[in-house]
C-alpha cells in the first residue's frame, strides 16, 4: 500500500523548497509538511483534515497562506493597465474594495486567477497564486508597454494569514480596534492587529465568513500565535492545505492547475461573472466574445457520486459508455459527507441531473451532475 497521490516528501528533497515565515511554527504544531508547488507547507496538523474542515465550518480555522504572491501596481495608469490584462472591470472598484478576476492570455486561457485590491485610483494590489507568481510577474511585466505604472513583486515582504469561519470575526475583533462589522464582503481596510500594521480583508477561500490579514513577514509568528490563543475558547484550529482544498471544493471555488489553466477559458470554468465583455479591450477578450456568441464546447460541472467510491483529480468521465470528460478536483466532502467533484464535460451534457460515470481504478461508478456550490453557508 502507501502509494500516495500527495506524499510526505523526504527530508533531502524538502531542503530545496521555499518556506513561509511560519515554517518553524507549523513544525512545532505537528504539521505534516509536504511539497506544494515548490513550497513546503503543512498538509494537515495532528487534529486531522476532517476536524480542521469542520472547525472552519462550525467555529474557526486558521490558515497560513503566506506562500501567495503579492504585486504592487502604482501609478496614474494603474487601473487602465490592470483592466487591459484582467477580465473583471477594475474601473468599478472603489477605494477599499477588492474583486476576484483572471489574467487571460491571447487564446482566452487563464494565466492565473487573482484578487485585485484598490487602495486608491493609482494604487492597486494584486494577490496571485503561489506556484504561478513568477510566471505571473513575467507576464504582467511584459504587458506593461506604455502604461505609466510602477510594478513591484513584494511577496517576500508579506505574510498572509486567513482566519475563517462563523467565529472568525468575533476572534479577530478582540485583537483590533478597527470595527470589523463595517467591512463588507470583498472589502478591506488598513489597521492594527495586535499592534501590527495590517491589511484586513474580508475575503477567503473556504465558503465561510472571515478575513485574510496581510502584514509584514517578520510579524507572522506573533500574529499567528495570537490568533490561535485568542480563538482557543471558540475552538479555533490551525488548518493545513488538505482542509483548505476540501473547503474550497465544497464551495466549488476554482483551483489553478485544476479547474483553471493556460488552455481553459474562464467561461468554461463557470467564471462568466468575472468576465466583463462590455469593458474596453483586454487580452483574450475577442476569443471570449466569440466563445460566448458561438457557445462553449465544454463546461465545468459539479457532480456527486451516487455509489460508493471516490473520484479523484484526473479520473476519466464516461457518458453513455463514451470517454467524454475529466475530473479536475474530486474528494470526499467532510461537512456534506458525500463524495463530490468538479469535471469538464461537453456542454450538451452540462445539465443538472445528467447521469455520468467516473472510472475509479478500472471500475465505472455512477455519479450525477448537481448544482454548485455544493455547500453554501447560511447568512
Amino acid at each position, binding site marked *: *500500500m502507501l*502509494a500516495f497521490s500527495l506524499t510526505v516528501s523526504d527530508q533531502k528533497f524538502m531542503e530545496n523548497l521555499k518556506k513561509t515565515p511560519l515554517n518553524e511554527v507549523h513544525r512545532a504544531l505537528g504539521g*505534516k509538511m509536504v511539497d506544494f508547488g515548490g513550497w513546503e507547507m503543512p498538509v*494537515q496538523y495532528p487534529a486531522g*483534515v476532517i476536524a480542521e474542515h469542520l472547525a472552519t465550518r462550525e467555529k474557526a480555522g486558521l490558515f497560513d497562506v503566506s506562500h501567495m504572491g503579492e504585486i504592487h501596481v502604482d501609478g496614474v495608469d494603474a487601473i487602465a493597465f490592470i483592466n487591459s490584462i484582467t477580465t473583471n472591470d477594475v474601473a468599478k472598484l472603489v477605494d477599499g474594495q477588492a474583486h476576484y478576476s483572471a489574467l487571460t492570455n491571447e487564446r482566452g486561457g487563464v494565466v492565473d486567477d487573482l484578487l485585485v485590491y484598490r487602495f486608491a485610483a493609482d494604487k492597486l494590489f494584486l494577490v496571485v497564486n503561489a506556484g504561478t507568481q513568477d510566471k505571473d510577474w513575467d507576464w504582467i511585466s511584459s504587458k506593461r508597454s506604455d502604461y505609466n505604472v510602477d510594478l513591484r513583486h513584494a511577496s517576500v515582504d508579506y505574510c498572509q494569514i486567513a482566519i475563517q469561519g462563523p467565529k472568525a470575526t468575533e476572534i479577530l475583533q478582540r485583537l483590533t480596534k478597527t470595527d470589523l462589522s463595517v467591512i463588507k464582503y470583498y472589502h478591506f481596510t488598513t489597521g492594527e492587529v495586535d499592534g501590527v500594521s495590517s491589511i484586513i480583508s474580508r475575503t477567503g477561500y473556504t465558503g465561510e465568513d472571515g478575513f485574510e490579514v496581510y502584514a509584514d513577514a517578520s510579524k507572522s509568528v506573533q500574529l499567528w500565535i495570537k490568533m490561535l490563543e485568542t480563538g482557543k475558547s471558540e475552538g479555533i484550529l490551525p488548518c493545513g492545505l488538505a482542509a483548505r482544498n476540501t473547503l474550497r471544493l465544497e464551495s466549488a471555488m476554482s483551483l489553478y492547475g485544476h479547474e483553471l489553466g493556460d488552455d481553459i477559458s474562464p467561461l468554461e470554468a463557470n467564471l462568466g461573472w468575472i468576465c466583463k465583455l462590455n469593458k474596453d479591450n483586454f487580452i483574450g477578450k475577442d476569443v471570449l466574445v466569440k466563445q460566448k456568441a458561438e457557445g462553449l464546447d465544454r463546461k465545468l460541472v459539479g457532480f456527486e457520486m451516487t455509489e460508493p467510491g*471516490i473520484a479523484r483529480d484526473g479520473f476519466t468521465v464516461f457518458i453513455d459508455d463514451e470517454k467524454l470528460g475529466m475530473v479536475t478536483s474530486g474528494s*470526499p466532502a467532510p461537512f456534506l459527507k458525500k463524495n463530490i467533484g468538479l469535471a469538464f464535460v461537453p456542454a450538451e451534457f452540462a445539465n443538472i441531473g445528467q447521469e455520468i460515470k467516473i472510472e475509479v*481504478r478500472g471500475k465505472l461508478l455512477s455519479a450525477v451532475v448537481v448544482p454548485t456550490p455544493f455547500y453554501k453557508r447560511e447568512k
Partner: protein
Amino acid sequence: MSKILENLRYSKDHEWVLVDGEVATVGITDYAQEALGDVVYVDLPRVGDAFNAHEAIGSVESVKAVSEIFTPIGGEIVEVNESINDAPENVNGDCYGSGWMIKIKMNKTGETDAMLSNDEYEEYLSAQA
C-alpha cells in the same frame, strides 16, 4: 513513534498479519494509517474471492489519498470486516483491532515466515525515516 505489536508479522507495504491456524487476519499498520490520515472509505473484496500473495485486494482512501491494499499471503477470503463500511475511522483509531480488513484462508501456512517480525519492521521503519 508508530505502534507495533509483538505478535504480528508485517509486510514492507505496511500491512500486518495475525495467523490463527490456517486463517490469517490482515490489516494496515499504525504507520500506514498515520501516513494516510483520516480514512473515509475502504473498498474490500468479497468473501470467496481468491488471491495470490502480493495481489491488490482492495483500497483504502483517506480525504487526501488513496492506496491499494495488498495481501501479503495467498488464499481465499473467508471474512471481510463489514463494520468499517460504516466506521472507516476505526482504521485510524484501532488499526490492529476493530480496524482489521480481511480474513484469508491461506493456501500454504509457511508463507508468513518470509514476512517481517515486529523487530524487523521497526528497523525497516526507522531506515525509512
